[in-house]
Structures are given as C-alpha cells and as structure tokens.
C-alpha cells in the first residue's frame, strides 16, 4: 500500500526481498547501499544475529527523484529466510507494494526455493493480497557458482506468472540494479492502474 503525502509531495512505496535462507537478500541491499550516492540513500539497518543471519529485517530507504513533482521514496526490506522465522516474515509483508523473489540457483537449493515461494503465496494471501497480481520479479542469484540450475529450469519451476526475471550474482552486483529497476517500474505502473 503506497503512501502518498501531498503535503511533502512524496510517494512512499515498500519493496520486500523474499526468498530462502542464504539466497542473498541482504547481499542485494548491501550492494545497493554501497553503490547509491549518499544523497539517494538513507542509513541501512540490519536486525541480525551475531552470526549475521537476518533476525527480523534489513531496511534501506532510497530516494530516486521526482515524478510529476512528487519525490519517490522506496523502502527496501528483506525478510529472514530461515523457515522458523515465519511469523516475522508475515509482519514484514504488511503494506508491501512489490516483491523481489530472490532464488538460490544452486541445484541443492531447488526445494528451498519452492518452499519459500509457497510460503510467500500463503503469507501474501494471509495479508489480504492476491499473490497472482502483486508486482513481482524473480532474481536467480549465485549464477557465478558451479552446479547451478539453468534459467529455463528455474523459470519452469518458479515463474508461473511469467513476470520479469534476472540472473544475478549479488556479491559482485551483477543483476542487482536490473532487478531493482524492474520492481520499481512494476510498482509505479501498478500504482497508476489503481493497485491490487
């Protein structure tokens, strides 16, 4: 649910990076944080365990410029990927405007991707969203590693809605901004169409 403030002439939207544990959601945000100019980004907050696993969420606010005299602000969140943090994931999806599903391309993680995607659908429904209509993009991460599934396989497995999909290596930044741009575009188009 976007927040449009006519007084400060701002549009605020919420993007959530979803996916299985260790798929690279936090790494996406860290890369975006490093590459954005200080004027365009706020402070990145990570609520993580001592071993740097996401405990509640990471948060990165971005200001991207103006549309029709309105400043556009995007709040990027990650969810904790580990299965047992489901209650936290549900909370973070509240008010979401668009989702990046970050999949781990490694063959050994195929089941985890599927499980996480099913979990996303269930949690979106629980929050009152239609999982078949919410702005969504897929990012097939860790393409630089050996033993990864092909894009065609990942597409067949995950991308039933045939939404935009990107290959990435979040560590080095490949595909990170392409993914971000894509979800932002989908959110703004969705906003124009009148939402979900």
């Amino acid at each position, binding site marked *: *649910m976007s*927040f449009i403030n006519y007084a400060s002439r701002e549009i605020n939207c919420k993007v959530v990076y979803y996916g299985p544990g260790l798929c690279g959601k936090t790494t996406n945000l860290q890369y975006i944080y490093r590459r954005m100019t200080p004027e365009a980004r706020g402070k990145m907050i990570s609520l993580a365990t001592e071993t740097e696993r996401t405990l509640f969420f990471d948060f990165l606010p971005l200001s991207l410029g103006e549309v029709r005299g309105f400043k556009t602000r995007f709040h990027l969140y990650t969810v904790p990927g580990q299965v047992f943090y489901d209650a936290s994931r549900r909370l973070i999806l509240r008010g979401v405007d668009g989702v990046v599903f970050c999949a781990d391309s490694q063959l050994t993680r195929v089941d985890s991707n599927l499980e996480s995607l099913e979990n996303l659908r269930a949690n979106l429904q629980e929050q009152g969203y239609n999982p078949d209509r919410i702005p969504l993009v897929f990012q097939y991460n860790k393409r630089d590693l050996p033993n990864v599934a092909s894009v065609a396989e990942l597409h067949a497995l995950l991308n039933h809605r045939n939404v935009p999909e990107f290959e990435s290596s979040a560590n080095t930044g490949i595909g990170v901004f392409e993914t971000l741009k894509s979800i932002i575009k989908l959110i703004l188009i969705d906003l124009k169409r009148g939402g979900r």
Partner: protein
Amino acid sequence: MAHGNFILREREYEAFVAVLRKLILDSYSKAVFLVDKNGTLMASAGETEEFDTTSLASLAAGNIAATGGLANLIGEKEFTILFHEGERDNMHLSLVANRLILIVVFDRRSSIGLVRLRVRRASEELARILIAVMEEAGAAEKEFIEEITEADIESLFK
C-alpha cells in the same frame, strides 16, 4: 489495509502537525512523531533534527508489529502501548485507531504518567483527523497518479 493507497492531503497534514505541537507543549516532551503502521513517517514536531526519522519510523513499525505478534500469541488483539526507558531519554509508542503509531520521546522534564495522559487526548484528535483522511482518499487518488506516464517512470532511471 492491503488495498488502495494511503493519501495524506495538506489540510489533514497540517491538522496532524497542530495536534503534535500541542502534545509537545502539554506533555513537556522533546519530540513526537506520527508514523504509518507500515513504517513511513507522516508528521513530526519538536526537536526532531537530532533523529534519523526514516530509520526511527521503520523500526517503530517493526517494534509495534512484533509486539502485536506477541499479543496474538497470548490471545490479545494488540498491545496498544509500548514504553522504553533509557538512561537519558524515554520513548512512548502507542497505536492510534489501529492504523497509526504515535511516538513520544521525553526526558526528565516530563514523566510517563503525564505523557500517557496527554497521549490519550491527542490520540482521540488524531483518530478524528484520520477518518477525514480516509474519506478524502478516493477523490484525491485519481488526480495525479493517472497522469503518470511510462516516460515519467523511465526518467527515474536516467
């Protein structure tokens, strides 16, 4: 509230700020913030320049969401008030009409009892303004969002 957009017009924004300014004075607080439950700052008053307001709004929303989750676990609908006591400054968070979060930062010049008392009255006024925001939202929405073109969206990435 998953559907539609939350639209705040100038008039209601000014009304929110007026309530917050009165709350600051009445409660002898340092700063007050009004935050959307999804973590976006809507209005603030007082000594706000020393705070990272974007982070504060996001973390407050996370805090309220997590506490709400805890409430559900013991069969409560919501815990409507949170209080964090620090060495120097304290923070009082409360839900307004189950939609907004009112954050009051105060120090020794005030007390938890006074803040609670003043927050209760301010919350009633904020809730009334919120009803007006909701009623006007539908009309405002069509005005400029429909004018956004694909070229406008593209221009963000140049």
